[in-house]
């Protein structure tokens, strides 16, 4: 496939560049002066030609082709001092820049925004970036700074539940988010039943979320891409960073292996709730903890080639005496090779491994058995970035993933169960994307992704019609089964109305070949992944977005309003009464249907000054229509929340003290409550009418935080972070259950369980 596409693209590229004037290319890498970390998204432009510029890519590389001449080249990155250098461009020139952090006291309270009005110019719609430093200021439950909880404060992104790191984007379900850690998909991004995310902020460099209108290099999930990049490690000097919290402690060490050439970072985190559990009589035999380990190293082979290796390993362990234990976790590993093939052509090759598995161990009467499931990927990604001229940039390449999915199965000494084989498949994609500045006002970004998913042999595939077995296909190992082909066009544009406002629009089709089966209203580690089969078809979404962006007061305030409509096909759900753990073939238990989601998102941000923060509001609707559920009629999806409001404020009180506050309000989830009751076998049983026809009570809470930064002592920096979650003690409903009244058997009652009220936390952070 690549062989055919490549010449085609090459022709296009040559046409693009065939211009008469003598031009030369300026290229290089932009870094942080102090740490040597490459900087992502630095605006690089020249004073002489307005409207000409580029920004550094995810590896800090930029390329800018200009007519011969003398230029003031400006590199600009918020939080850093602007850097200007005069270049006499008479040949292709390599120009690496190192930027110094702006040391004024306001540096840490700047909300991420690379160039002040980038938000207007960039075509990307529905994209938000998080500043890792900013996250530290926002109060978070248990004082554990957490990117997944912070992105939930953005419009269009909704929390999966109280204190939960799971999230829903624009009406998508939790499995429709592509969560990438250094390009490796993370299949379960939560610890401890979702209360913590797998991301240890100390090890992270950059986080961005794309809410559905992703460029062609991303694919495989319907709703969003959460792209998380790990730090490279300081290549100038050694640093130790750490934190002590109520729930966990963190420690990171980074430094050069060879100054300027190579560096490493190792970052670990572990909870210690189990230490307290052990101290109690009731829990002394129990274990409950998780840990994370992030590690990364990079090596610059020469001016043009660089290699990165990064890995993540995390595990949750729960155990009750000798009888019952469950552990689960992710492992990812990424090896990347950056190569500057020419001043205009940048290449990245990634070889990626990801794994998620869980294992439940049960000992009963001296017999051990376990239930386990696994998903394991080998993934090769090749991407080229080509910068033919100052108005054009291309990305093209391919991605090939080999999946090995072991369905949930029982194993043990004396266990006989219908053998459930691992299933193999190949998920491929070829993509090309072009960003084109058509004029100083109009930028267009368009692309195409061609994805094809092939079932590989080694198992028997049953074909069902409405739950009845009609046929089956036995694929021998090495055979190729059914292949699903999908074309995914993507397009987005921005049009600058004037210096302070723009409109943007986009359309994207996304497909998804892996599906998470969950019969639960909240995600658990035992939810299982399943690939396309002869019954399960690729999920498809088509999303249209339109937005208006406006900046006020010299870009200090940024306002945006975005509307979207999304249609989803081939959605998968369990049928009523599905046997999820032990069914011989889970596919018999599935139903299929469509979904739709639409809404308006408003965001007002203040990005500079002593007071910063944002107000985000979403008005939306999310529905599903599944054959076999709710009499085949539309119903509100669980994550349908009409109103969703977040207010985040941060205030730099003095040089040492900063304060923060956070208020969230949302309509309760759509839930199924009984409309009647009856008696079966002496037990009260509830009668249900429509699916998700009721609402949980509205959710709201207010959190506050304060950070005290101690004066530096030589190299030693430290800070104390205090926060209170749910200050006014709102009893937000976590579950509502129905039961017989214990004192009056003639009555039934509804019981609401609430989790967190007034949760105070203290965290101590240090760096030296």
């Amino acid at each position, binding site marked *: 496939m690549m062989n055919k596409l490549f010449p085609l693209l090459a022709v296009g590229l040559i046409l693009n560049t065939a211009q008469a004037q003598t031009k030369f290319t300026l290229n290089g890498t932009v870094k942080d002066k102090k740490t040597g970390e490459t900087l992502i998204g630095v605006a690089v432009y020249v004073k002489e030609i307005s409207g000409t510029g580029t920004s550094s890519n995810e590896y800090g590389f930029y390329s800018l082709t200009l007519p011969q001449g003398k230029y003031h080249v400006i590199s600009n990155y918020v939080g850093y001092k602007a850097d200007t250098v005069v270049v006499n461009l008479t040949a292709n020139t390599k120009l690496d820049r190192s930027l110094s952090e702006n040391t004024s006291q306001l540096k840490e309270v700047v909300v991420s925004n690379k160039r002040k009005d980038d938000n207007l110019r960039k075509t990307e719609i529905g994209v938000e970036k998080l500043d890792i430093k900013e996250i530290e200021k926002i109060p978070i439950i248990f004082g554990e700074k957490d990117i997944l909880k912070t992105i939930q404060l953005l419009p269009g992104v909704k929390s999966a*539940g109280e*204190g939960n790191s799971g999230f829903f984007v624009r009406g998508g379900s939790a499995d429709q988010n592509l969560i990438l850690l250094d390009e490796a998909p993370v299949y379960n991004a939560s610890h401890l039943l979702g*209360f913590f995310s797998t991301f240890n902020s100390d090890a992270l460099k950059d986080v961005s979320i794309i809410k559905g209108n992703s460029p062609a290099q991303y694919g495989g999930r319907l709703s969003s891409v959460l792209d998380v990049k790990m730090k490279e490690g300081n290549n100038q000097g050694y640093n130790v960073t750490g934190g002590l919290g109520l729930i966990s402690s963190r420690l990171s060490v980074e430094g050069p292996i060879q100054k300027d050439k190579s560096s490493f970072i190792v970052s670990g985190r572990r909870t210690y709730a189990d230490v307290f559990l052990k101290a109690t009589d*009731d829990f002394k035999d*129990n274990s*409950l903890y998780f840990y994370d380990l992030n590690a990364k190293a990079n090596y610059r082979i020469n001016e043009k080639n660089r290699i990165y290796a990064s890995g993540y390993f995390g595990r949750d362990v*729960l155990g*009750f*005496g*000798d009888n*019952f234990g469950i552990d689960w976790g992710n492992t990812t590993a990424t090896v990347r090779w950056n190569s500057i093939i020419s001043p205009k052509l940048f290449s990245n090759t990634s070889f990626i491994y990801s794994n998620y598995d869980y294992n*439940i161990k049960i000992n*009963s*009467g001296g*017999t051990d*058995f376990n239930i386990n499931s696994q998903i394991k990927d080998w993934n090769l990604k090749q991407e080229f970035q080509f910068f033919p001229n100052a108005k054009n940039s291309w990305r093209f390449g391919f991605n090939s993933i080999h999946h090995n999915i072991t369905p949930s199965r*029982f194993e043990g000494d*004396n*266990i*006989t*169960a219908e053998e459930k084989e691992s299933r193999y498949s190949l998920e491929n994609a070829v993509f090309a994307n072009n960003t084109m500045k058509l004029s100083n006002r109009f930028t267009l970004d368009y692309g195409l992704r061609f994805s094809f998913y092939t079932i590989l042999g080694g198992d028997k595939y049953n074909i069902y019609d409405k739950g009845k077995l009609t046929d089956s296909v036995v694929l021998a190992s090495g055979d190729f089964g059914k292949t699903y082909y999908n074309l995914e066009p993507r397009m987005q544009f921005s049009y600058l109305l004037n210096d302070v406002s723009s409109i943007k629009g986009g359309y994207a089709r996304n497909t998804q070949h892996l599906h998470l089966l969950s*019969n*639960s*209203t*909240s995600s658990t580690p*035992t939810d299982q992944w399943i690939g396309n089969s002869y019954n399960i078809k690729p999920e498809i979404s088509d999303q249209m977005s339109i937005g208006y962006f406006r900046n006020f007061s010299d870009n200090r305030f940024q306002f945006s309003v975005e509307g979207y409509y999304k249609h989803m096909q081939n959605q998968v759900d369990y049928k*009523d*009464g599905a*046997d999820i753990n032990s069914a011989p073939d889970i596919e018999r238990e599935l139903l299929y249907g469509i979904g739709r989601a639409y809404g308006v998102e408003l965001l007002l941000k203040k990005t500079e000054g002593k007071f910063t923060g944002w107000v985000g509001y979403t008005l939306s609707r999310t529905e599903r229509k599944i054959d076999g559920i709710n009499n085949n009629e539309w119903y509100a999806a669980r994550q349908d929340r009409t109103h969703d409001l977040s207010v985040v404020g941060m205030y730099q009180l003095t040089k040492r003290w900063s304060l923060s506050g956070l208020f969230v309000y949302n309509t309760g*989830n759509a*839930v*199924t*409550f*009984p*409309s*009647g009751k*009856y*008696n*079966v076998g*002496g037990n*009260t049983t*509830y*009668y*249900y009418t429509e699916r998700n026809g*009721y609402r949980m009570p509205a959710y709201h809470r207010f959190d506050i935080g304060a950070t005290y930064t101690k004066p530096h002592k030589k190299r030693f920096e430290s800070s104390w972070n205090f926060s209170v979650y749910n200050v006014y003690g709102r*009893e937000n409903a*976590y*579950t*509502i259950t129905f039961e017989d009244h214990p004192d009056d*058997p003639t*009555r*039934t*009652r*509804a019981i*609401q*369980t*609430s*989790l*967190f*009220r007034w949760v105070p936390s203290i965290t101590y952070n240090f760096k030296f």
Partner: protein
Amino acid sequence: MRNILLALAVLTFASCEKEIEIDLNSTDPKVVIEGNITNNPGPHYVRISKTVNFSETNNYPPVTGALVIITDNTGVTDTLTEATPGMYRTNKIIGTPGNTYTLTVSSEGKDYRAVSTMPQLVSLDSVRFNIFSGPLGGNGDAYTVIPVFTDPSVFGNSYRFIQTVNGEEDKSYIVFNDNVNNGSVNQRPIFSPDAEINTGDTVSIEMRCIDNIAYTYFYTLSQIAGGGPGGGTTPSNPPNNITGNYALGLFTAYTSQKRTEVVK
């Protein structure tokens, strides 16, 4: 599994429970048919009632004057007698493993039909007690019960267990099938969040061999009972075997055996 995890979550973090008022919709009363045939001596009963709204008291209006007939595949036809309002009693039909029973109900101008085959009896050989320090801590050593029986080698057996501790019946729905461990001696304990068994307790276990639809029915109820909205499975009415007109409930033919032991 999910129940255990949820219980743990609630327990681990400070939580509070309170009774709340919810304005639930009213619904037209629906017919509920619950019929059982067992291998024990009759009579057997079919109960017909109607649903009430959630806010009402647990008095379920009986459906009287229905014509209720049970036939089997050997040609026996038994027209049931209404013993008390809504409670219909068999007169002669005998529950025999392997036989198929058909229930027909005519009531208020509507007909209902349900079919159930009584599985062959699988012998409950004994019960064992197994020390289990459960996820909820418990005080000291708690026990779980392992019903000891040998699953027949033919695939497709389902079981329901009713556990009674010191005379108090455990309301949990406990069902097993042979998707796992077909044809071997059972090793699985009965996990019940509602019962705690300690030394000296008298435990009785009733084992019922049930058909597949009954398994699905009680399995669905067991899943719903787990956490309710917010934590557990999205609740739904359990699929049943009643056809003709819409009715809740289940008609099931099952074998029943009971063993009672004291935990030592």
